[in-house]
């Protein structure tokens, strides 16, 4: 095992990961614009990945300077929190020249995130520390403390080693920083859903499992690319169960609000907390299944326990 697995939350330096608390548009711009301008002035690569409305605020305020900044709508790029580290943050940081500090504003938590999404958001914020420790980067995460519920603000203290309070320009270290606690606290059990289509699979029935999922997904309203994505996710998760998860597993598919949900449950142990969140070097064979699932699903939730692993993914219909 690598150090990244055994000691995922060691010292972060030179990585910095402050939360920026704001209450209105003015405080938002007061906190974010100097961060962007300081980076541009220093010749540092800058990216902004925030919800569309806030993205427009920053873009308008930057004017011509916006052209030098990578701008992403987090409601799209980060709809699945599990996608943000590999698909947004590392994708941008890894593409920059070595040695230069990379600056990113990332806002993965907003009022309106569902109760189903939020645990994945909190875990994502905690895991950024493990994914970026030792890297020359600053990721600043705005939190709308006027609109977000109290427990989400409390979690922001636990997932960020420093906090910038409204109206302040200075990041203050905070004693509540405890990212491991957040990862385990939001490792919530995913109780089996009644009335879901259920299929137990082994190696010889992997193909059958995929066809079952696709048939049910189509019946429940998935089509086109989304149905192809359901096929890919089912294939990767069930294959993982056969190869790494004890040789068998149980697939369930059902509809939930505007989504088709696909769940794979097995008796394997998924020890690597960053599984599926690291970009994989081109020359490495294998190890991309969960990464792909994170890239294509609208939400991925994972529950790890001593008796097994459950991965649940949502696809909008």
């Amino acid at each position, binding site marked *: 095992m690598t150090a990244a697995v055994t000691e995922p939350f060691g010292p972060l330096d030179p990585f910095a990961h402050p939360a920026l608390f704001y209450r209105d548009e003015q405080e938002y711009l007061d906190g974010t614009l100097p961060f962007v301008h300081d980076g541009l002035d220093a010749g540092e690569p800058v990216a902004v990945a925030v919800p569309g409305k806030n993205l427009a605020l920053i873009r308008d305020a930057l004017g011509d300077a916006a052209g030098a900044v990578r701008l992403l709508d987090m409601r799209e790029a980060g709809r699945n929190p599990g996608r943000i580290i590999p698909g947004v943050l590392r994708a941008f940081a890894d593409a920059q020249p070595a040695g230069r500090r990379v600056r990113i504003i990332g806002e993965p938590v907003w009022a309106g995130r569902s109760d189903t999404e939020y645990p994945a958001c909190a875990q994502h914020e905690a895991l950024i520390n493990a994914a970026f420790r030792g890297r020359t980067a600053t990721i600043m995460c705005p939190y709308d403390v006027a609109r977000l519920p109290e427990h989400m603000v409390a979690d922001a203290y636990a997932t960020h080693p420093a906090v910038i309070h409204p109206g302040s320009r200075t990041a203050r270290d905070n004693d509540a920083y405890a990212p491991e606690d957040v990862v385990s606290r939001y490792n919530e059990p995913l109780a089996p859903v009644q009335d879901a289509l259920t299929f137990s699979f082994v*190696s*010889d*029935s*992997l*193909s*059958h499992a*995929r066809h079952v999922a696709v048939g049910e997904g189509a019946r429940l309203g998935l089509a086109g*690319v989304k149905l*192809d*994505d359901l*096929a*890919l996710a089912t*294939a*990767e998760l069930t*294959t993982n169960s*056969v*190869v790494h998860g004890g040789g068998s597993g149980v697939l369930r598919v059902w509809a939930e609000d505007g989504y088709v949900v696909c769940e794979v449950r097995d008796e394997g142990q998924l020890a690597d907390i960053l599984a599926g969140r690291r970009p*994989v070097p*081109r*020359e490495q*064979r*294998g190890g*991309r*299944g969960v*990464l*792909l699932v994170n*890239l*294509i699903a609208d939400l991925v939730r994972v529950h790890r326990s001593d008796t097994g692993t459950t991965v649940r993914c949502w696809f909008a219909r």
Partner: protein
Amino acid sequence: MPGLAVFPLAGQRGVRAAGEVGLTTRAIWEGVLEQAVREDDDVYYLELSGVTFVDVAGAGALAAAAGQLRDGRRFVVRRPPPALRRTLDLLWPGQTGIEVSTS
């Protein structure tokens, strides 16, 4: 259990495959690609209209094989299943040595 059948292409260097590429057929697929890497022609055709699915490891084997082609050689992948295009686009963007053809 669906397999993967492979036939030589008439008149062109390459193969036509039919079935699925997944855990149980991966060895057959990798064998096809290893053979293809050893060939000499500039273009090696992979006719995949009869392939209904390729998993991530199967796409990875194709990307790895393409990476081993000498300069000037390439795979032309004809009518692959949507899953293969999607996986290549997301995980191996800009991979040299692979030309996807929809006709």
